[in-house]
């Protein structure tokens, strides 16, 4: 990325400090620390079971780490439930998809607009002007996202009926709809072919470029990681073993040993 960014990378906006997470006797994450800079695209990589998803779950409040602190925009997230974290400006997608299967594509994305809709149930029940205007405006916004992701022709289909690749797109759309400051993407390209991945990369870069959304993504495809990331964190057995720009990380010996592998002659 040689041209000037619309949103230059700034100061740390999300700080993970000495996080440890245990499930019973199993240590998922041990004393992990790193920072995510504003407007950057940060990848988290590492072998399976390294604790990557758990880390994301800690950030958005689904798991509560036993030790350590996570700070977002300077404010410590302590024992906060996911909906409050969302309110603060963090949204996400899930590794195994967590769509609302019985709702349509557009309705799934509309749920992403929850934080932008404040009409209470009475206003909605009586269809008062505030509720109607809000619904109209947010629907329009969702239509834009649907067009952006090029899924207009399936907007009314219940997502449970869609193929995996399209479901992944919808989940991204739902996360985008939140207009969050930070998007946590858990393996957004898992199970996709080369073309679908290329498209996803295009979307991710576009969102980062046009909206300045900070992205944290867990990804296994090294090509993708090296291509689009500004910085990379490498986890192994719940610990950080490298943290820096792609080129540096790629040639780090520990990373090669643990994950990237050695070229055998």
């Amino acid at each position, binding site marked *: 990325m040689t041209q000037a960014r619309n949103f230059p990378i700034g100061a740390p906006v999300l700080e993970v400090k000495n996080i440890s997470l245990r499930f019973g006797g199993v240590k998922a994450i041990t004393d992990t620390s790193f920072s995510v800079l504003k407007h950057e695209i940060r990848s988290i990589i590492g072998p399976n079971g390294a604790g990557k998803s758990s880390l994301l779950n800690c950030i958005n409040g*689904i798991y509560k780490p036993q030790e350590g602190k996570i700070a977002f925009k300077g404010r410590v997230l302590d024992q906060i439930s996911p909906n409050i974290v969302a309110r603060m400006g963090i949204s996400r997608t899930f590794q195994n998809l967590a769509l609302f299967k019985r709702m349509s594509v557009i309705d799934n994305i509309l749920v992403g607009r929850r934080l932008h809709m404040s009409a209470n149930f009475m206003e909605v029940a009586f269809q008062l002007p505030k509720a109607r205007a809000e619904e109209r405006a947010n629907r329009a916004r969702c239509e834009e996202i649907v067009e952006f992701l090029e899924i207009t022709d399936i907007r009314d289909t219940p997502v449970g009926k869609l193929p995996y690749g399209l479901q992944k797109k919808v989940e991204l759309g739902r996360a985008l709809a939140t207009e969050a400051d930070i998007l946590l993407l858990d393996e957004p390209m898992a199970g996709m072919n080369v073309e679908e991945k290329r498209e996803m990369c295009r979307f991710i870069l576009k969102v980062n470029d046009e909206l300045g959304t900070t992205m944290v993504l867990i990804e296994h495809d090294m090509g993708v990681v090296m291509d689009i990331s500004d910085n990379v964190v490498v986890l192994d057995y719940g610990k950080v073993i490298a943290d820096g720009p792609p080129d540096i990380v790629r040639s780090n010996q520990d990373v090669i040993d643990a994950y990237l592998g050695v070229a055998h002659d």
Partner: protein
Amino acid sequence: MIEVLFFFEVVLAGLLAGTMYSLVALGFVLIYKASSTFNFAQGAMVFFAVLSFVGFMELGIPFAIAFAMTVILMIAVGYTTERLVLQPLRNESEDTLLMATIGLAFVLQGLAQAVWGVEVRRLDLGVGDFPIAWIADNLGLFVSALDVMAGVVAASLIVILALMFKYTKMGLGLRAVADDPGAAASIGIPLKNIMLLVWSAAGFVALVAGMMWGARAGVQFALVDLALKALPVLIIGGFSSIPGAIVGGLIIGVVEKVLEVYIGPVFGGGIEGWAPFVLAIFFLLWRPEGLFGEKIIRRV
């Protein structure tokens, strides 16, 4: 002194009544342990089993043969349920399966009444609901002979089943199937046989439970509502635990009796109708998996 004695009587009666609840709960636990299904129809199965048993005897069939016939009937019910209800829905959510078993409950209770009629039947098991003379005379306690027999039967069944589960090959197979049917099948555990076995056991337990209840309170539709009480028992004891079914039943039995006797008169009775459920709520808030159940974990 009479107060204390009376209290003991109440507690004892509660414990014994509790074993009856345990018997019903036992059927639930068996099916849950093997297939992770909540069989809401367990109560209806109890009713269906004992009504059929009594019906057979009314037709002149001797006790032992009627018993055997009913057991076979229950096995057939179990098999049919497995094939027609549970198999088609095996990929659906837990809630859907539960609703299907609610439907099953209505099918069974309706069928039983349609075939055998709705009159209340007496069931004589040779032991009367009278205080055991020996205990009354020597200890001054009034303890129903029928209650004691029910307690002994329940306890024996529970012990036998618990041992079977833990130590026999069948029991191990059952637990494997409950944990992961796919994996169990892939290592050669005959799923069909296991499921048949479980439903047969649950049916047998249902029949025994029905007989105990029926001897005590008459064979009538009210049994089904009584069986609803097995649900709080399971919440307290844990859905996956056989010992839990006993302990849960005992707790509910005692609490029910004590509240009914000591606080009931203030309100004109009826506390036992809701007390077990409210007690269950407290357990749910404190320890949802029950005293002996497995913790419910959700993976994200």
